[in-house]
């Protein structure tokens, strides 16, 4: 008898085995099914919902994937042998309820149990996103999720520039950029997507050139239009998240209303001289009812009480800070990790170097978000913001 066979026989005495059907039942009760096979084997199919940790890094990755040592674990390989060795190792690490699946994936498949073909991260992406892949909060599944995500940037300006840069770098698969304007030299103090040579060209085309140079594997969709009540739903529909970096109140309210109607989270940022605000407006957020922009500001200020950045100026780097907070929130929302800025407004005072957090409660009587089934419709936003009529 070979040494390995003696060891397998010994392991079988100490480690309980589960059939694939028992494993499926245990998985439904909260057990973790851990696929320890090689990447090439996993690529041909793996049980639905399995944690694909592989054998090589198993001991290093298991605690991030399964923090609780008393959670039942079923180890799985292709025939039920490698999983015995893996189960013994995890037992030594301190996991108390460790099983091995008899017959492995071939038996699982033969018994007609559910499996899927996991999306594969190709070598190019593996290299580009390697720092994401190392983090358990992103990992391969998270990166695939980002690659399949769609984010729309409203405005390729001061806020949209830094946000778009990092969202493109992060591998958000589809980045829509909507802006009607052309690049002007006075933009370049903060709108870092653009270049001096592109003064006079369309901002969305300039944005596409820059973003594709950084990450050619994503799809940048330039949308050169001015948003209006007539086109806003056509532009926004299908996106997972909207990043509002618009520069005027009519667009802010229009984007808010459309996001409320379509149920899209709206990652908001605004800046003024040395101060900025960021939050997430998302009334239908699953974990708590969030406010919309109208809950916070039912009406815009009249023009004479709202001097613009063109009149008042802005520190060029300030929208960089706020736009990046928006990018972070966007990625968190797309991955479904952490606690988004829903119902919380971050205020940044650059001169004091101070962040403060203010609570923003949903307005139970908000005409737009209190009852999504009774959407009151789009209004003339120019008039609304000029204080004429809503």
């Amino acid at each position, binding site marked *: 008898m070979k040494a390995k066979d003696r060891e397998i026989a010994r392991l079988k005495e100490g480690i309980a085995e589960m059939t694939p059907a028992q494993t499926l039942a245990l998985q439904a009760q909260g057990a973790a099914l851990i696929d320890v096979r090689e990447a090439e084997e996993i690529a041909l199919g793996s049980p639905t919902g399995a944690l694909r940790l592989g054998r090589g890094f198993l001991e290093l990755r298991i605690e991030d994937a399964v923090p609780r040592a008393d959670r039942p674990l079923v180890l799985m390989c292709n025939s039920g042998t490698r999983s015995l060795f893996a189960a013994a190792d995890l037992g030594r690490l301190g996991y108390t309820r460790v099983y091995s699946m008899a017959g492995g994936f071939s038996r699982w498949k033969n018994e007609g149990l559910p499996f899927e073909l996991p999306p594969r991260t190709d070598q190019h992406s593996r290299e580009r996103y390697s720092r994401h892949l190392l983090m358990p909060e992103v990992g391969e599944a998270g990166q695939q999720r980002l690659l399949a995500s769609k984010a729309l940037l409203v*405005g390729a*300006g*001061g*806020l*949209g520039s830094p946000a778009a840069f990092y969202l493109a770098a992060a591998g958000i698969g589809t980045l829509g950029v909507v802006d009607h*304007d052309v690049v*002007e030299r006075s933009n370049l103090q*903060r*709108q870092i997507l653009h270049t001096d040579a592109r003064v006079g060209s369309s901002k969305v085309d300039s944005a596409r050139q820059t973003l594709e140079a950084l990450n050619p594997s994503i799809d940048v969709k330039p949308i050169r239009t*001015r*948003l*209006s009540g007539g086109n806003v739903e056509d532009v926004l529909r299908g996106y997972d998240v909207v990043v*509002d*970096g*618009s*520069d*005027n*109140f*009519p*667009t802010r309210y229009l984007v808010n209303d459309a996001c409320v109607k379509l149920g899209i989270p709206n990652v908001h*940022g*605004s*800046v*003024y*001289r*040395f*101060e900025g*605000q960021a939050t997430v407006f998302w009334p239908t957020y699953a974990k708590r009812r969030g406010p919309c922009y109208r809950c*916070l*500001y*039912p*009406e*815009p*200020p009249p*023009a004479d*009480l*709202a*001097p*613009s*950045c*063109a*009149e*008042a100026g*802005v520190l*060029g780097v*300030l*929208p960089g800070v706020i736009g990046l907070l928006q990018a972070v929130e966007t990625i968190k929302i797309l991955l479904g990790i952490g606690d988004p800025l829903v119902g919380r*407004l971050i*205020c940044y005072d650059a*001169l*004091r170097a101070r962040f*403060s*957090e*203010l*609570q*923003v*409660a949903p307005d139970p009587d908000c005409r737009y978000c209190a009852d999504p089934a009774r959407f009151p419709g789009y209004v003339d*936003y*120019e008039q609304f*913001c000029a204080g004429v009529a809503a």
Partner: protein
Amino acid sequence: MSNVTIRIPTPLRSYTGGADEVRVQAQTVGDALHALGAAHDGVLSRILDAAGEPRQFVNIYIGGSNVRGLDGLASAVAEGEVISIVPAVAGGADESQRSRDRST
């Protein structure tokens, strides 16, 4: 009476001689804002409407809580508390006024 600090947002600092914080003595948020208005001409009408209520595009906070969810301007302020005035700001750092002047 409590000593409280009112944080002045940038758009209103032209009324406070550039000061980003003003300290006043008050028992309620309303008192504090009126004390601010007494010390600095013109600022109060930017915060409160003709009926004396916060304007629709301004939020008043005590610490991290909006006074709308408390007792409004009658909300009591304790010694050392911070009142923040948080107006709506459109800026995405583009040429806002010019954009606004164009029709949609």
